[in-house]
C-alpha cells in the first residue's frame, strides 16, 4: 500500500472517502441574497480538485463491479455459462437474472418494463446481462469477457414501418401497462392526439399551404462525469448507496423492491454529479452495485467508461415529423396538422411524457385555432430513449420553425415578421385549450434578438491575414475565405416547466435557524440533486433573503429528508427553490413568534408592524431594528421540514388532447450567424445570440451559464451530434467521443444574451424555469442560417458535410 493509500485508509476506516460534505458559505462581500451573482459554494472545491464526484468514491476494501452487456440487439438467450468467470482469481461474485433476490425483477420510471438483468431475451444492443465483482476493475472486465452467452438472434424492429407491419415481432409480448389499452399497436408505447377547432375547414381558407417532412437524429446527453457509485453493505442488512443521479427518491422507489428491502434500509446520498441533462433520470448502476455489495458483503464501486456510458443511459428520442402549415396572404396561420413519431427504443423510460410534450407543444409559441396533432412513441429494438434537456419540445421546435421559414418564404414575408404576426401573448389559448396566464413575450424576444448588432463581415480577417480558427474547417486550414458564404437564421420556442399532466409534483425543504457564537446561521437540507445547475447557490441566496442571515450551510442531498423531485424539466429553482422559500417563511414566523413572546411587551411594533428578518435582525417594514435574531433565539433552534407544490395540472384527454396539462411556459429566441464553406460543406457558427424571458433572475451569472450551455447543446445537434444506429442490426456504431462529437471551444461561438425579466405571478419570486428553452430554438436557428447560406432544403439534423455538397 502506498503512503497515500495508507493515509486515506486511516482517515477513511469503515466509511468511504469522497462522500459529500455540507457546503458552508459565509459573507460573500455583498448581501448574497436573491438577484445577485453570488458565487457557487462548491466552486473552490471544484477548482482545487477536492470536490468528490461519484467516480472518486473510495473504500479501503472495496471491489469493482462490471456489467456484461449484450452484443446483439434482439435475441433469445439460449444459455449463460459463468463458471470460468467465477473461477478467475480475484473475482468475488458473478450474478445473472437467476440470482435476483426477489420477484421484483424489473424497474422503470413510469412503466416497470426494464429487466434488472436480461431474462431469456435481450431487446437492445448493450442491455445488461450479467454482473461481476472483482478486486481490480481490469480483473472484473476480463472475467466478464469469459462469461459465455449463447444468443439466438431474433428479427429487429427499428422504425414505424417495421414496428407496425403485419406480423411484426413484439418488443414486449404481454403488455399490461396503463397505456396498452389505448394504443393502436403493442409496439406503440403511448399515443397522444390533440384536436382543436376544425383543421379541414381552416385549410380551405389558407392561401398558401406548406408541407414538410423532418428527421431529428438521436442525441446523447454526453455529460462528462460517467455513471458511477459506491454501494456499501450495512450491518442492519441494508445498504448505503452513494451515487450521481437526478432524483434520489425516484431511484429509491425503484431500487428497494428489487433488493427486497424496506426503503429506510436503502440510504442514498448524492455524490458529486458531473452533469446530467436528463441522462441520469433512469437508473444505471444503482441496483447492480447494491446487488453485488449485498452478495459479497463488501463495498462495491462501479464506474462506467465512456464506451459503456453510451449504453448505460437513455438518449434523446430520434423523431420523424410531418407538418402541414397553412396561412393567409396577410401572414396569419390558418391551421397546423402534424404527426410526430418518436423512437422510444426497447424500454419505455419517460417516453409517455415525451409524447405529451411533443404533442402539446407541437405548434410552437404561435396562435393557431385549428390544429390536428398526433404524437406517438414506438417500442423498437433501438437503444432506449428518454429524458434529455428539452424533452419532446426540441424535436417539434426543429420542425415547426423550419415550417415557419418555409411559409414566410412562400408568402414573400420576412421570417421574423411572420413569426411576430402569429406570436402568442399572455391570454393565448394553447392547442390543449389551456390559457397561457403569465407573460409570453414571444414577439418581443424576436425583436430583441434581431436588434442585437451583427458580427462584422469577414470576421476572420486580421492584420496578419486570415485567422483559420475563425473559419469553417478551423485548424485543418481548409479555406482562407474562398467559397465561404454567410447565412443568418432565427427561431423561437416554447417549453413547459415542471412535471405536467396531473403528476403530483412537489418538493421538500428542511430549514434550520440557530444562533452560533452570537450569530444567527441557517442550514438548508433538501434531496435536490445538484448536477451543476447551481441549485446549491440559489438555496443559500434564498435563505439569506428570507432569514436575514449571512452564513448558510447546504447539507448534502440524501434520502433522510423528503423528496425534492427531479432535477429536470427546468423545475428545480421553481420547485425546490420554492420549497426552501416556503419553509424559510414558516421558520421566520416561528422566529417572530419567539420574539413576540420574549420582547413583545417592550416595543409596540412587535404586535403592530409587518416584521422581517434582515441583516441579522428582526426589523419592521419601516426598517427599524427590533432585536438581533441571535438574541431572539438564544439556545433555541427553529427547524422545520415542509413540502411545496405547484398549481395542480390535468391529464390530456386521450382522444382530444384537451386539458390544463402544464404549469408554466418558458420562451427563448435565437439568432444564428453561420459561415459555410460551400465547396467542402463545412459550417462555422460565428455567433449564436439569445433572448430569453427568465421571469426573475435569482442569480444572473448562473442564468447566463444555463442559457449558453443549453444553446451549445442545440448547436451540437444542429451540426455534429448523432448516435448512429445500424438500420439492419440495430447496433450502435459510434459509442465514443472519437465518433460521437460534441462541440469544442473552437466549435462554439460567442453567445451574446438579452435577458428579460417579466414576473410570473404564480411562481416563487416570479421566476421562470430556464434550463431547457435555450436548447430548443438554437438548433432550428442554426439550420435556418445554413439554409439561408446554401439555399438547400435541409430537412434533417444534424447537418453533415455531404448534405451540403450533395456528394
Amino acid at each position: 500500500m502506498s503512503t497515500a493509500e495508507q493515509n486515506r485508509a486511516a482517515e477513511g476506516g469503515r466509511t468511504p472517502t469522497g462522500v459529500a460534505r455540507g457546503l458552508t458559505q459565509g459573507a460573500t462581500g455583498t448581501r448574497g441574497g436573491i438577484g445577485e451573482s453570488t458565487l457557487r459554494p462548491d466552486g473552490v472545491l471544484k477548482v482545487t480538485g477536492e470536490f468528490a464526484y461519484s467516480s472518486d468514491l473510495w473504500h479501503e476494501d472495496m471491489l469493482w463491479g462490471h456489467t456484461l452487456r449484450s452484443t446483439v440487439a434482439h435475441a433469445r438467450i439460449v444459455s449463460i455459462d459463468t463458471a470460468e468467470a467465477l473461477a478467475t482469481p480475484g473475482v468475488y461474485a458473478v450474478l445473472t437474472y437467476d440470482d435476483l433476490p426477489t420477484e421484483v425483477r424489473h424497474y422503470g420510471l413510469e412503466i416497470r418494463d426494464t429487466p434488472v438483468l436480461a431474462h431469456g431475451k435481450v431487446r437492445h444492443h448493450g442491455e445488461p446481462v450479467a454482473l461481476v465483482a472483482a478486486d481490480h476493475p481490469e480483473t472484473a472486465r476480463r472475467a466478464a469477457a469469459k462469461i459465455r452467452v449463447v444468443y439466438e438472434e431474433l428479427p429487429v424492429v427499428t422504425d414505424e414501418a417495421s414496428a407496425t407491419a403485419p406480423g411484426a415481432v413484439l418488443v414486449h409480448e404481454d403488455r399490461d401497462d396503463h397505456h396498452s389499452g389505448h394504443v393502436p399497436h403493442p409496439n406503440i408505447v403511448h399515443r397522444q392526439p390533440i384536436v382543436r377547432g376544425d383543421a379541414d375547414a381552416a385549410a380551405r381558407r389558407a392561401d398558401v399551404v406548406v408541407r414538410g417532412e423532418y428527421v431529428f437524429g438521436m442525441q446523447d446527453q454526453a455529460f462528462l462525469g460517467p455513471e458511477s457509485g459506491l454501494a456499501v453493505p450495512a450491518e442492519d442488512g441494508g445498504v448505503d448507496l452513494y451515487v450521481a443521479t437526478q432524483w434520489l427518491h425516484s431511484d429509491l422507489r425503484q431500487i428497494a423492491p428489487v433488493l427486497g428491502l424496506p426503503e429506510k434500509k436503502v440510504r442514498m446520498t448524492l455524490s458529486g454529479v458531473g452533469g446530467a441533462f436528463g441522462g441520469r433520470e433512469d437508473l444505471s448502476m444503482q441496483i447492480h452495485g447494491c446487488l453485488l455489495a449485498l452478495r459479497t458483503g463488501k463495498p462495491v464501486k462501479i464506474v462506467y467508461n465512456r464506451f459503456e456510458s453510451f449504453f448505460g443511459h437513455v438518449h434523446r428520442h430520434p423523431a420523424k415529423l410531418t407538418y402541414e402549415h397553412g396561412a393567409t396572404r396577410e401572414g396569419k396561420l390558418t391551421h397546423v396538422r402534424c404527426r410526430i413519431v418518436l423512437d422510444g427504443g426497447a424500454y419505455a423510460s419517460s417516453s409517455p411524457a415525451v409524447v405529451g410534450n411533443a404533442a402539446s407543444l407541437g405548434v410552437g409559441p404561435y396562435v393557431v385555432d385549428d390544429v390536428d396533432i398526433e404524437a406517438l412513441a414506438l417500442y423498437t429494438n433501438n437503444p432506449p430513449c428518454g429524458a434529455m434537456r428539452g424533452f419532446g419540445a426540441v424535436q417539434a421546435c426543429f420542425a415547426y420553425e423550419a415550417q415557419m421559414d418555409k411559409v414566410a418564404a412562400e408568402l414573400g414575408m420576412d421570417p421574423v415578421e411572420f413569426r411576430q404576426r402569429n406570436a402568442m401573448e399572455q391570454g393565448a389559448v394553447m392547442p390543449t385549450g389551456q390559457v397561457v396566464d403569465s407573460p409570453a413575450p414571444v414577439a418581443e424576444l424576436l425583436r430583441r434578438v434581431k436588434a442585437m448588432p451583427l458580427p462584422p463581415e469577414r470576421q476572420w480577417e486580421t492584420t496578419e491575414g486570415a485567422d483559420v480558427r475563425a473559419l469553417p474547417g478551423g485548424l485543418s486550414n481548409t479555406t482562407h475565405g474562398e467559397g465561404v458564404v454567410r447565412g443568418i437564421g432565427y427561431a423561437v420556442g416554447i417549453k413547459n416547466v415542471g412535471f405536467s399532466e396531473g403528476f403530483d409534483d412537489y418538493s421538500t425543504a428542511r430549514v434550520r435557524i440557530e444562533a452560533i457564537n452570537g450569530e444567527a446561521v441557517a442550514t438548508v437540507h433538501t434531496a435536490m440533486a445538484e448536477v451543476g445547475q447551481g441549485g446549491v447557490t440559489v438555496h443559500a441566496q434564498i435563505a439569506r433573503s428570507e432569514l436575514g442571515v449571512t452564513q448558510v450551510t447546504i447539507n448534502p442531498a440524501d434520502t433522510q429528508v423528503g423528496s425534492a423531485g427531479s432535477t429536470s424539466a427546468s423545475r428545480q429553482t421553481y420547485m425546490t427553490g420554492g420549497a426552501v422559500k416556503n419553509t424559510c417563511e414558516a421558520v421566520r414566523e416561528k422566529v417572530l413568534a419567539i420574539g413576540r413572546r420574549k420582547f413583545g411587551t417592550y416595543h409596540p411594533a412587535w404586535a403592530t408592524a409587518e416584521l422581517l428578518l434582515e441583516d441579522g435582525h428582526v426589523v419592521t417594514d419601516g426598517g427599524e431594528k427590533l432585536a438581533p435574531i441571535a438574541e431572539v433565539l438564544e439556545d433555541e433552534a427553529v427547524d422545520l421540514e415542509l413540502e411545496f407544490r405547484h398549481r395542480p395540472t390535468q391529464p390530456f384527454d386521450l382522444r382530444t388532447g384537451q386539458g390544463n396539462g402544464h404549469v408554466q411556459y418558458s420562451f427563448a429566441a435565437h439568432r444564428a450567424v453561420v459561415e459555410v464553406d460551400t465547396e467542402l460543406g463545412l459550417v462555422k457558427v460565428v455567433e449564436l445570440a439569445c433572448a430569453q424571458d427568465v421571469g426573475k433572475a435569482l442569480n444572473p451569472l448562473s442564468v447566463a451559464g444555463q442559457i449558453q450551455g443549453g444553446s451549445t447543446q442545440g448547436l451540437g445537434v444542429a451540426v455534429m451530434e448523432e448516435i448512429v444506429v445500424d438500420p439492419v442490426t440495430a447496433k450502435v456504431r459510434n459509442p465514443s467521443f472519437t465518433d460521437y462529437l460534441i462541440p469544442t471551444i473552437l466549435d462554439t461561438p460567442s453567445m451574446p444574451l438579452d435577458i428579460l425579466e417579466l414576473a410570473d405571478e404564480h411562481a416563487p419570486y416570479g421566476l421562470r424555469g430556464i434550463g431547457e428553452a435555450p436548447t430548443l430554438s438554437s438548433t432550428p436557428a442554426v439550420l435556418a442560417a445554413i439554409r439561408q447560406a446554401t439555399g438547400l432544403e435541409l430537412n434533417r439534423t444534424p447537418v453533415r458535410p455531404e448534405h451540403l455538397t450533395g456528394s
Partner: protein
Amino acid sequence: MRVTFTVNGRQASADDVWEGESLLYVLRERLGLPGSKNACEQGECGSCTVRLDGVPVCSCLVAAGQAQGREVTTVEGLAGPEGELSTVQQAFVDAGAVQCGFCTPGLLVAADELLERNPEPSDGDIREALSGNLCRCTGYEKILDAVRLAAARTEGAV
C-alpha cells in the same frame, strides 16, 4: 511493478501496478489524487490533463510506467502552499466558469500552461489551447471569460 515519480513537487510511489494501468488510474486510485478526471479514458476529452515534465498530456493515454522518474503536475498542485487559489483557479470561480466542474481540473491545467507560455493570449489563442478540453455544461463563454480575467489579473499584478 513499482512506479516512482514526483507529483506536485513530492516524491510518490505505487506498488503492484499492473502494466496496463494508466497514469490517470495510478493518480486516482493508488495515490489518492482523484482531482484529475476520467470522462472518456480514450484521449478525447482532456478531463485528465496533467503536466508531464511541464507538457500537458492526457494522463489516461500515458502508461503509468512512462511516468517513472518524471515530474507530474495535477490540478491538486495548482494552489499555493497554504491552499491559496492560483490566479487561474480564482478566475474560474469568479467568472462562473464552473458548473458541474467535471471538465474544470483539466481545463485549469491546460489554461495554466497557456498563460505561462503566452501571458496575453488572444481569444483565438485561448480557443486553440483549450480545444482538447470538452465541457458539456457551460458553452465555454464563461471559460473564455475566466482565462481573459486570469490574464488581465496577472498582467495587472506585474
